[in-house]
């Protein structure tokens, strides 16, 4: 290996390519060495964290979606990236920059969210910029976070969520944090590329990425308003559709899988555990879309699933009977039926348009 020279794309990109190669090989120590070399070669620490490590992590997600990495390999790559950040955080040159004089921030992932790397990247960027950061990690149960806020009284709590299905939990977490008087900054793919779910769930701020988050914190977030009632945020929940679908999810999955097996007796693949998992995912996204009352969320998830299936050699139309069976079971739920038919139309449009995936897998993460 030789140290990459700066190319036309900027200083960071060659390092990102090089780091990707060693991460792909699963070579933890080479990855750490390379990151430290990048730092010593003069690459700015923040650029290293976001444009090298962050870029490699984005590529990990994309490669997984394109079926070029297994979930286990994705985990390996993520763990290596995490180790690299850990090593950088101990580097004397970076530690000396972490003065903590700007104030205190708590960074946590919503409960159930195990994609911790975005929060980790943010943590290090904020430390570099002069914040004292308490990094609470992945899957932080709400009560832990709240007692942390009471004990430490940070200026802001930053909450990260990658999977849209964490949005109901995120809503509870946001309101609980705000009830302590702490402003909540949210970020991560779950809140939508345009941050619309951050606004819907009444977060005090939404950050597109770590740099955006740092800028928002520097400008100062307004405090949460105390007169708002969480029940007013989502008036559509009054129809109970979310509650019913979420509560009866296992039964919906069981009945849908049974229906698929009955309808397609010649298809042994429907009896495989993967079918139940796929249907469970669909139901989970359906419930989430009902919670936030957002059709694109569900439609894009189905299109994304169709794309993943195509990449794995399964035709997108296998999703249609599952959507149909769910629609039959949820016939009394108008919002759910609307979501299911929008998703079906999305797949059909994709098939007719010669783009079998509906929307080709172009993004890096699951849709939000």
């Amino acid at each position, binding site marked *: 290996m030789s140290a990459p020279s700066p190319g036309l794309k900027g200083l960071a990109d060659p390092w990102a390519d090089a780091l990707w190669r060693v991460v792909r090989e*699963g070579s933890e120590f080479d990855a750490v060495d390379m990151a430290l070399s990048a730092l010593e070669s003069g690459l700015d620490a923040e650029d290293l964290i976001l444009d090298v490590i962050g870029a490699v992590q984005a590529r990990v997600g994309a490669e997984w979606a394109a079926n070029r990495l*297994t979930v286990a390999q994705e985990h*390996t790559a993520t763990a290596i990236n995490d180790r690299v950040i850990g090593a950088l955080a101990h580097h004397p040159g970076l530690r000396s920059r972490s003065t903590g004089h700007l104030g205190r921030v708590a960074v946590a992932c919503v409960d159930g969210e*195990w994609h911790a790397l975005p929060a980790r990247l943010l943590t290090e960027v904020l430390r570099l910029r002069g914040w004292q950061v308490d990094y609470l990690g992945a899957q932080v149960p709400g009560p832990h976070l709240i007692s942390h806020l*009471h*004990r430490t009284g940070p200026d802001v709590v930053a909450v990260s969520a990658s999977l849209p299905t964490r949005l109901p939990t995120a809503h509870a977490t946001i309101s609980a944090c705000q*009830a*302590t008087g702490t402003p909540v900054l949210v970020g991560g793919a779950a809140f939508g590329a345009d941050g619309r779910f951050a606004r819907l769930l009444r977060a005090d701020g939404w950050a597109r990425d770590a740099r955006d988050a740092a800028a928002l914190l520097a400008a100062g977030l307004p405090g949460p308003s105390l007169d708002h009632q969480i029940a007013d945020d989502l008036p559509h929940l009054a129809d109970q559709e979310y509650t019913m679908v979420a509560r009866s999810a296992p039964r919906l999955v069981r009945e849908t*899988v049974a229906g698929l097996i009955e309808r397609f007796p010649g298809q042994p693949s429907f009896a495989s555990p993967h079918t*139940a998992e796929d249907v469970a995912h669909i139901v989970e996204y359906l419930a989430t879309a009902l919670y936030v009352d957002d059709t694109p969320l569900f439609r894009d998830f189905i299109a994304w699933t169709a794309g993943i299936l195509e990449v794995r050699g399964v035709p997108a139309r296998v999703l249609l009977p599952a959507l149909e069976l769910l629609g039959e079971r949820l016939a009394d739920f108008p919002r759910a039926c609307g979501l299911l038919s929008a998703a079906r139309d999305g797949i059909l449009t994709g098939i007719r348009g010669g783009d079998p995936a509906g929307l080709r897998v172009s993004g890096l993460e699951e849709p939000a």
Partner: protein
Amino acid sequence: MRSSPERHDHQGTATTAASMIDAAPYPVLLVGADGTVGRVNPAARLLLRSAEPGMPLADAAPGWLVEAHLGYGDGSPPARGPIGARTFEAHASRGDDGSEVVWWLVDDTDRRLAVDALRVQQERTDFLAEASSRLLSSLNLDRCMRVTARLAAQNLAEAALVIAPSTGRKHPIAYCGPDGVVVRDELVIDPAELPGLAEALQGFPPVPSRWIDPATAPAWLPSAGLGQIGAMVVTALPGHGIPAGALVLLGGSARSSFSEGEEVFARLFAARAGAAMSAARLYAEQASITQTLMRELLPPRVSRLEGAELAAGYRPGGPAERIGGDFYDLHPAADAAGESLIVLGDVCGKGLEAAVLTGKIRNTLRALLPLADDHHLVLNLLNGVLLNDDAHARFVTLVLASLRRVGGSLELRMTNAGHPSPLIVRADGRVETVESKGTLIGVLDQIKSQTVTVVLAPGESCLLYTDGVTEAKGGPLGDELYGEERLCAALEQCAGMPGQAMVEHVQMLASQWTGHVHQDDMALVVVTAPRGAHLSAVGGHGPGRFTA
């Protein structure tokens, strides 16, 4: 005399109107088109003593009424203003001939006072409601002090200072000036220098608010943005049996005192602020006690043992728990030739009580370390300790693993006491179960155990886990156990994976399996034989080896 019925009628009506005006219980003034006073009824005469018919209105009535008369037109709203010590509402109507204006004066002093009082009460209620919700929202003392200072400065005075009881030599303070900016500080102060402060900080016996001559304000008293202090009052913040601190209200030079109403109201506010601050203080004390006690029970940080890479993960069951009945411990070898010991176990039960027993077991095992060459002996002694422990009628399952580096490989001596079997992930992706059966500890007088030895080639791993992983209940259908079979199938994909990634991967799979439901505690340790000499030579934090 009746010269004409019409005239008679007109005269009669005018007379009736005049007598009615005279008899009216309200002061009434008739003002002619030329601006002179026509008629003044007795009630008006009592009120406007100088008013006489024929004089210009300007001489008879206060300026605001004169102004209202000059501006009067149809549809004008009633005018309002003071006469003497009272206030009046003046309603006008046209006289009979259309050029006269009749002014009716209605005394609205009491109503206005009531309205003002109501408004003040409403504002105070709103303020107290806001103060309560702001103060109750936080259990953080620092935040409570800031909120108290800001609310007091913005609603009760021009500036406010909150002084908390001392922590050591210094008193934490929060000051909010007229600009609304709160400053937190720690000051070395002598409370005796500010009259009333020492008593207020003691909290008991209860002391009334104390007026202070601003001239006696000590030098340390912050007053930024206030200029000259015009008035100053010290109020105790009553706590829950412990003093919560004192509130000093500061008025600017334009204010020479606080009214009695303001002072009473300040005490209402102080009661709420004091309750919130003392609750926050109690919470902080309790949290710190819990943290100190819990520190011993938390799983240890994973460090590298000689010749082995280690990774571990721990997740207690309940969402509010930090510790539980699962535990692991790592004991490095005393010397390079010796064996390191890893323990992973599961006390029956959950929560704090189970966690306390894990602490005892970990301490006992630490004491038994010198005997760790003989796993059976260690387990036997632990069994005796638990059987004799009357306080805990509980049992434990655990795995002992002694590690030794042999060349590039890692030799593990493992003994299983009623625990789920450890799993080996081979370099080629095969997953093997470590078959070592033994009885659980703390139930039977005599235990059985069997120690087996396995060897990990470089890059191979051994996973120790608790049943929180395999007994995770959920899955797409909601009621299946995750099970050893699924775990093994998942591990087959994990050949060559770094230990930490393997731990996180299994944790993720189990928590995905259970969905939103929190279940049993879960503890995992992965021991990996390092790949190649490079790994032990470069600690991971050294300077770059990456050159060629």
